[in-house]
């Protein structure tokens, strides 16, 4: 651990569903430093994805606080700017828009920042190069393999240069070879660009690739293992 303030600081966060009957997060506290790669593991329904959604400001906690770069986000009303500039999200299903090409999909988050269409295209093509998809800029998602689609999703997550990448089971729908490629890609980006990477996974071997593995059970953090 370093001495700097954590880039993600989750403090005693509680989140319930079904009018309080389901306690998805039960007082979760977690700090993640800048540039760290943290994996979150645990059985289905333990609250991994809910925690990731809370950090991404997609879910509002019932109580507790979340600080990102020292700024409290749970009480903010409009979090679009935060999501557009600070967070890069990778989902289990690639969630690419089927009517757009790979390049256009990567450009989607860039609509929220002030850059010209030409700059948008240039940056998208560079990012597709970064994820080894040169020459596939104009391909539609249906024309790409599962692993390629997920790499487009990774490029899309990087489109606005976010300091934090949150990946929710990014290899859940991929075969082992494609999974390995995506994880290697995310690790390289984390290492080379210094971004903070939080990855939710079921897969123990993928979790082991992280700097630190966090295990969750019944909405609580069970252990925080240093790699």
């Amino acid at each position, binding site marked *: 651990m370093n001495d700097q303030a954590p880039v993600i600081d989750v403090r005693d966060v509680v989140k319930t569903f079904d009018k309080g009957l389901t306690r998805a997060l039960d007082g979760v506290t977690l700090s993640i430093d800048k540039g760290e790669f943290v994996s979150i593991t645990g059985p289905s329904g333990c609250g991994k994805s809910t925690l990731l959604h809370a950090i991404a400001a997609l879910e509002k906690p019932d109580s507790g606080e979340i600080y990102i770069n020292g700024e409290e986000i749970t009480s903010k009303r409009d979090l679009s700017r935060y999501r557009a*500039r600070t967070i890069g999200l990778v989902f289990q299903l690639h969630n690419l828009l089927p009517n*757009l090409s790979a390049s*256009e999909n990567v450009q989607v988050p860039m609509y929220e920042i002030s850059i010209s269409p030409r700059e948008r295209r240039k940056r998208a093509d560079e990012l597709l190069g970064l994820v080894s998809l040169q020459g596939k800029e104009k391909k539609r998602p249906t024309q790409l393999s599962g692993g390629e689609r997920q790499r487009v999703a990774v490029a899309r997550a990087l489109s606005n240069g976010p300091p934090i990448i949150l990946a929710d089971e990014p290899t859940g729908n991929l075969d082992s070879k494609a999974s390995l490629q995506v994880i290697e890609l995310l690790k390289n980006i984390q290492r080379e660009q210094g971004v903070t990477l939080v990855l939710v996974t079921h897969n123990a071997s993928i979790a082991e690739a992280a700097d630190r593995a966090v295990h969750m059970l019944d909405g609580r953090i069970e252990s925080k293992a240093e790699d």
Partner: protein
Amino acid sequence: MLWPLLRCQKARKYLKGTSVSFVLFILSNLMRQKIRTGLTVLGISIGITAVVALGIFVHSAKVATEGLIQAGGSDFIIGRDGSADLTLSTVTEDEIAAVSAYEEVEYVTGALIAIFGVGSSPFFLQFGIEPEALDFFEVEILEGTRLSPGATDEMLLGNSSSVGADLGDTIEIRDLEFTVVGIYDTGASMLDGGAILPLAAVQEYERKPNIVTIAFVRTRPGTDIESLKARIEDDYPNLAAAATLDEVGDIDQGTQILDAVELGISAIAIFIGGIAVMNTMVMAVFERTREFGILRALGWRTRRIIQMVIGESLLLCLIAAAAGSLLAIGLTQLVILFPAVSSFIEIEYTLNVFLRGLIVGVSVGLLGAIYPAYRAARLSPAQAIRYE
């Protein structure tokens, strides 16, 4: 047309980040459901066709009426105030004499208008006028001569008449025979599609002795025409003086009825079209709930989501407006082939009519997008992502 809008600070702020590629993105969203989009466009474009085609006909009919008012180089016409239709107006010879007594009036001539089927023309306009009045009432004779003074069996034929006769031919009207002595052109489509006959003959077969439909008034140079018209209307409250199409409504309430019908059809088109668009857009929003969640998760503001939904709706309706306008042009060109229509009006296309179609299209687009945009904007990103 859009430039003043784009110069507006508020509009620029709202459109910030909007680009050609965003418009293409919106278009590609519409193309995802080609059949649904196509059917919606077809439905709206039929409504817009009705609005535009009716607008074209109403405008063309007004132009034809305006041409009749201004025929013969007169300054204004006199008719019976409150007449349901111009052809139902009645002005007596005493009233014509009273109007001609005003010192500013250079000449007044009455004309009795009758319309019924003659020969191959189902609606043949007969314009009865004193043959001597043609010295003042300016009619360009293309072939032949004018009506002879005191003639009762001669007629002049308009150059666009569809009655199927030529110079020297005889035409039978109500058991009376008339010889075509001249072919004329006034530039007024309604008049050029019919014939000019001696007033006495028309009064006889129409059984309207001493009565005309309207009177044409020409004033002396330097006359304040508006003031004269006002004085005539004050002195003779049963008469109305009209120099423009707006004023002819007092004599011909048919134009006002046409305006009301046009407005009514536009309102119905907006209402029905709005529901059709709302149905399409609500379905699109429901189907793409997860996608909206993804876009929100990627940082899209609610404003951009609203822009996208309204943009899709507007684009749908703009395509329909363009298709509807083209259909209306085709339809009017088809209808004008019928002699019954072509003998009365000359189709005239004006920007205003197409703008009205565009306004209907934009109104339908906005009306239909309100609820779907509201629904899309209110989606919780996390719930939308979980939506199956």
